[in-house]
């Protein structure tokens, strides 16, 4: 079972390749706000959730796909870890 750091690393890689092509990976730190800054809009959030569900074989509810759970890499890792 992957730990939170591994989840963070994998998610960071996914976000960089899908939504932030060409951006400096070092700038995507664990506290960068993804939803409130507009990097993850509703469509991108949906894509990320589908990726997390498929990758970790978990189910994320609609009400969980919000700023509380997906705003930073840390938040995402915590949500995924809580479902493993």
């Amino acid at each position, binding site marked *: *079972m992957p*730990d*939170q*750091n591994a989840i963070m690393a994998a998610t960071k890689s996914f976000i960089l390749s899908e*939504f*932030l*092509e060409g*951006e*400096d990976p070092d*700038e*995507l730190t*664990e*506290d*960068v706000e993804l939803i*409130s800054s*507009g*990097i993850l*809009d*509703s*469509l991108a*959030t*949906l*894509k990320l*959730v*589908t990726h997390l569900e498929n990758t970790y074989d978990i189910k994320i*509810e*609609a*009400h*969980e*796909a*919000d*700023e*509380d759970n997906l705003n*930073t890499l*840390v938040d995402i*890792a*915590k949500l995924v*870890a809580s479902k493993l």
Partner: protein
Amino acid sequence: MKQGATKDMATSKLSKARAAAARPEVPVSAAERWLGLGLVAVQLALVVAAAVRYRFESPVFQQALPWLAAAAIVHHLLPARHRLAFFAAISLATIFYFFGISPTGFDFASALERGGEVVAIGLALIALCHLPIPFRPRIAVLLGVGAGLMALRGGALFGESLATIWPVLGALFMFRLVIYAHDVEHEKGKPDFVRAIAYFFMLPNVFFPLFPVVDWKAFGRNYYNDDAMRIYQRGLHWMARGVLQIVFYRIVYYHFYVDASLVEDGSSLLRYLLANFALYLRVSGQFHMIVGLLLLFGFNLPETNHHYFLAESFTDYWRRVNIYWKDFMVKIFYTPVAFSLRTKGDILPGVVGSAVAFFATWVLHAYQSYWLRGAMSFSLQDTLFWTILGVLVMINTVWEARRGRKRSLSARFDPKEAFFAALRTMGVFAVMGVLWSLWSAKSFEQWLSIWRFADADFFGRAAVALVCVGVVKIVVERLTTFEGGLLFGATPKGARWPQLLRSAVLTVLLPMSILWVLGHPGVHRRVDEKTRFILRSLKSNQPNTADLRAIERGYYENLFDASKSNFLDSGIQAPPDWVDFPEIEFLDTTGDMRYWALRPNQSATINGYRVSTNAFGMRDRAYAAQKPENTHRIAMLGSSHVMGWGVHDGEPFEALVEEGMADQRSDGESLEILNFGVGGYSPVCQLGVLREVALDLAPDAIYYIAHEVDGSLAIERLARLVQHKIPLEDEFLRDIVARAGLSASMSQSAMLRELPPFAEELVRKSYAKIAELARERGAVPVWIYMPRVPERQPDAEQIGKLRRAAEDAGFIVFDLTGIYGDTDVEDLVMSQWDLHPNAEGHAIMARALMDVMRSDERLGFGGPTSGPGETGAPGAGPSR
């Protein structure tokens, strides 16, 4: 074991990182913190002073704002554990305060009763969200109760007694209850009722029916989630931005706006499109003030609107223009729908989710209208606007799903990207400007009709305007990427003293000081008249000329319908228990050309004012039917201004003049001025007044009080007389009716479409007949143009026509244009929703009228005779 330890370490590391990111303190020492608070207090005082000086929206809010600002400072000084409860208590107090405000002082009984009703119903609704039953049945109960409340709002039961509370209850609960019921279902732990009370009754919602839809989770999550000083600085920045946006809105509203009916060429068409689009500044200005104030209480909420004129795509526009609404739609409609379809590919979920969100937006705007105004509103323009915008957003969504959207982790300025962004912005701006004009048009037909003026001149000017938008986009892009937007005075996370000070100076202290100085009466006295007019307009909260006429049209039409008048779409409305003139109990239809008249010997308190009638049905003291000997009797004819709608008995200017001139007859006679004014009376009605009552009381003079709207009022009243088959005694009236093709079977609006070409003739012949009837009985006809208070820019051409008509009819003519001088309109009217003059306004009218009476010895008050054609009151203004 190893795995658990790793997890703990990771969690610990994450927690530390997050904590460090979240709350770096700004001032370190106690002295610095006091200094920071002092800086906040100074800025807050300046913002409040500017907001009050510029009359930020409703007078009730202006009165409350200094107290709310003081409460914010007290809130900060309290121990952190008591702050939320204090905010909740202050919020509840504003509810009671709001209901206690009345035109005649603070009404404690109303405050307790109405405030108590709102709070009790509100608490019951919150409790329903926590019923210990499964989610779906709980939602069913809420929907049932909501439907019941909507039925009550429609007047099904307790219509009169609960009428005042519905807009407030609706504003507090109509959307937030949906979010709350949704979110608490998934919340862990015990319900936090203090937070719930703070959330639902949050100040300053009660003062703003149009309130951003605050998210329950964001409300809790962001509470003091950053250093307090940074949150406050951000809040002050937004409040100041709110004041500035309202001032910009007024520049557009008073000086650029063109009503659709006045579009006559390419230039005015462009002005109409641009100004209509820019009028949204009022909403965003309000939202910035509201959310800025909430930040001062620690709720570090996100921005409500962000550079929406500079959106680069339609989805971008949707994300920027009303961010809280977009978030609400995403949470309640888009995400559940898109989630349920997320296995169906990349495009379908987004498209269907967007379609559902826009359909919901359209329906919920009508639902909002129902709660705030009491009537659903589904116009063709609404439907087209939301449908077209929804389709554009869906197309944009598909495009982004296929091609991706450029995102960036850091703000960088790339000239090439900025250029293409500017091109996209120009396109979105053009389309949204056109769409916005459709949405705000009075009818689809009217909107279509303005496009016949889209000539080469229009397209040339529009191209220049769009290039300007593009340039602004590039400049803003450059500035926002320069040092993280610090040139704009941004307060980013982690900002420290130098940045906070820069923000304080650039975004609050400097602009608010300039604004405060520009609004100072001393400055107004030192500038020329044109500049003074512009500066004063920035402080005005009154309708512009076009809206004033629209309101009057509505007002006079409503006189017959007895419906509540709304102040256009501004959100400023009369209290539900406000009595419009036709609703007063002692108004009877007469069956003659007056159409209606006041019932004799009545007395009642209306909107807080004592209104009494004498034995003749005049709003006046008692008079003998037989004129006493050695008495000069004047019959004063007019409408609601003469009657004194909005002041106590004894305060109409007619009564003040009678008292002030009582011993000034040059022949030593006593003076009687009989007040025949009744709301809604037009020149046509005055013929009925003379024949039915006034001439029988043997007046020595007839004083006809004219207004700029005499023409429109005359045709509206004539249409009503025709519709009610009231006999027209005058041949010229029957002739006009015949030539206009009117019949009793036609609707009022159909008749009003036919009559405007006859308005001038109708006024001229009515004036001539009034003067003729007066002379037949030996009374001197006197015509006095009395400007209404909001007429800062009188229509000189229209007044000139009325005056010539009066002169040709043989009246002695006086023109009192300009009598209100530099006095602020707001100080002279009853309220924001009823622009009739208050007691001070009547005092000014009385002084001006007494001046002209003394100035012309033909009136018998001893003054020198003016020359022929002459007219005017000393000191009554330059345009006489």
